[in-house]
C-alpha cells in the first residue's frame, strides 16, 4: 500500500467534467477502521489513497467509456471520484491496506498498537 502526500495526488491531471463523491460505509472494528466505497468504473491503477494528519483521502480516475451512437437516456453521470474523511489520531498510516474489486474500494486503516487497549499483567512480588 502506497501512502502519498496530497501534493503527489494533486499532480495527477484532473479530468474535465464533474467529480463525484462516492458513497461509503465506515466501520470501526477495534484494531482498525474499515472504509468501503462504491467506485464503479475506476481501476486499481488509477486510485490514489492518502492518509495525512488524520485525514484519509481517496481519489479515483475514471477513464471515459467507449460510447458509440447517440444517447437515448442518461440517468447517471460518469466522472472521477473524490472524498476525504477525518479519522483522527492514533492510526498507523504506514500499514494502510487498499483493495479494489467489482467496483468497490476497501481501505483498512489499522490503529497504532500503542493506542489499543492492553491488559497489563500483574507480577507477584
Amino acid at each position, binding site marked *: 500500500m502506497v501512502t502519498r502526500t496530497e501534493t503527489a495526488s494533486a499532480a495527477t491531471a484532473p479530468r474535465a467534467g464533474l467529480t463525484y463523491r462516492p*458513497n461509503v*460505509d465506515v466501520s470501526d472494528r477495534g484494531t482498525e477502521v474499515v472504509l468501503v466505497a*462504491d467506485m464503479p468504473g475506476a481501476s486499481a491503477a488509477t486510485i490514489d489513497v492518502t492518509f495525512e494528519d488524520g485525514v484519509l483521502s481517496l481519489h479515483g480516475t475514471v477513464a471515459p467509456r467507449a460510447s458509440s451512437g447517440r444517447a437515448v437516456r442518461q440517468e*447517471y453521470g460518469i466522472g472521477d471520484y473524490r472524498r476525504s474523511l*477525518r479519522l483522527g489520531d492514533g492510526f498507523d498510516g504506514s500499514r494502510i491496506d487498499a483493495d479494489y474489486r467489482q467496483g468497490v474500494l476497501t481501505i483498512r486503516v489499522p490503529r497504532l498498537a500503542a493506542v489499543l487497549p492492553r491488559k497489563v499483567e500483574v507480577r507477584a512480588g
Partner: protein
Amino acid sequence: MPAYRTGFTLPLDELRDEIDRLWTTLVTAPPLHGWGPRSEESVFPAVNLRETDDAFTVEAELPGISVNDVDISVSGDSLVLKGARRGDAVAANSAADTVASRGADHAADAPTGGKVVWLLRERGSGAFERRLTLPVAVDSLRVEARLVDGVLTVVCPKLAACQPRKVEIRGA
C-alpha cells in the same frame, strides 16, 4: 438516514456535498448511481442507454455485485435487470449491526473482540429489479452482457426488421 458521529466528516466535505446537490438540481446533471441516502426515491440501478443503427447499449453501475448475483432477461422490447447486493460480510455475522453516535472519548472505548461500530452507512444492499422498455424489439438470442469493475454493459442487437434499411428504387 443513519446518525453520524459529529465531526467525523470534514466541514468542507459537507459543504462540497451541498454544492454538488445544488449544482445537480440547477443544471440537472445526472446524479451518481442510485444507491445511497441521497436518492432513496430513485430507481436502482440507474441506466444509460445508447443507440446505434443496429443495437442498443444499456449501461448500469452495479458496484459490489458479482456476475452470479445479476439476472438479465430480454423479451421483445423489454429488458429486465434483476439481482441483489449482499450486505457486508462482517456486518452480517455481527450482532452489532447498529449505527452508533458516539462522543469524543472514542479512542478510549474502542470496541474490541470483533464488535463493529458503524461510523457511516451510505451504501445500500438488498434486492433490486429494473424493467426497461427499449424503443424497438431486440434479438434476444444475440444479447450480450459484461460486468467489469462494477459496470454492467448489455448490448442488445436490434431485430433485422427493425434496423434502418436503404430502399432501392426500381426504374420503370
